[in-house]
């Protein structure tokens, strides 16, 4: 169902079928006034076409040139942003690879690391301590002097014997 506005516009532009035209004109309260209104609208259309239809674009070649420049700039921007998009994953992958290498190297080095060789003298003392049959009450302390960090103190108690090559080192 067309609204009055739609019917009026179609009537004005002569887009109504014969049947629709007859029905619409019969529904108008004042056909003569409507016809005048129609003539006025047509006049307005012709007037607008005459007055507004001849707008000239100056500097036509520059217009095209400017569009070309904008398109070229846009292409560059897109290329640059695509490069950035590729660089970020690359950076992530490079970082992850470096971290993995660091971890692997650390683990390998730690597993290969051996503590400094224990002195023969200390070994003998500890062996004495761990032999409960030979030294049932043996107690050995090893600590650093609080007063002088450079001095390590070996404190022995209950040893039945000291190694033969004992010497203060």
């Amino acid at each position: 169902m067309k609204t009055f506005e739609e019917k009026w516009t179609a009537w004005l532009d002569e887009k109504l079928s014969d049947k629709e035209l007859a029905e619409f004109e019969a529904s108008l309260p004042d056909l003569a006034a409507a016809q005048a209104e129609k003539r006025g609208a047509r006049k307005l259309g012709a007037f607008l076409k005459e007055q507004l239809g001849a707008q000239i674009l100056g500097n036509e070649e520059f217009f095209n040139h400017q569009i070309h420049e904008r398109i070229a700039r846009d292409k560059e921007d897109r290329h640059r942003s695509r490069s950035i998009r590729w660089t970020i994953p690359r950076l992530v992958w490079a970082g992850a690879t470096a971290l993995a290498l660091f971890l692997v190297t650390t683990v390998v080095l730690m597993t290969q690391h051996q503590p400094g060789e224990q002195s023969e003298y200390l070994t003998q003392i500890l062996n004495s301590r761990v032999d409960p049959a030979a030294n049932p009450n043996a107690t050995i302390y090893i600590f650093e002097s609080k007063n002088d960090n450079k001095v390590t103190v070996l404190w022995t108690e209950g040893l039945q014997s000291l190694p033969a090559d004992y010497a203060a080192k």
Partner: protein
Amino acid sequence: METETTPAQADVSELDLVRRCQAGQTDAFDQLVTRYRTRVFAMIYNMVHNEQDAWDLAQESFVKAWKSIGRFKGKSSFYTWIYRIVMNVTIDWLRKRQIKAGGAEFDDAIQLKEIDPASKTVPKADPLPHQRMEQKEVRDRIDHAISQLSPEHRAVILMKEIEEMQYHEIAETLGCSIGTVMSRLFYARKKLQNSLRDVYENV
């Protein structure tokens, strides 16, 4: 519809140019711009009434067309397709400017109250000028009258009266129904008839 073409350009089909544009050939797009630049500029100028703004909006429309030409499927003519872009760009611009200006430039609600759909033709009571108006004065009157219309009403009346587009083409361009186009056309005509009657009846 007329296009701005030279005989050599006319030999190249529009669809062929579009296909070449879709393949990234900017020289083909240059030809399309040359074909439509004057009409696009004129259409926008009649909407915004400022040469520099019209230039910028026409540029923006063509650049947008280039960016989205890959999505053109050829279901409508290129002209209708680019007009849709032009109208979106221009109407958006007018709407933003309206918001910046506080929304007072055009108001459809006021227009509807002012218009009697079945009003009789009565010449305005305003006194007619003693001599024919200068061209600029006439143009200023038209521009002012059009500036009182909403962007959608401007678009419809200009596409119908200046571009002589069919209802369905206008509907396609604006993305609305044919009924909406006809309704907008009704109110736009009434409004312009009321505003310009003394001008077009006497020039």
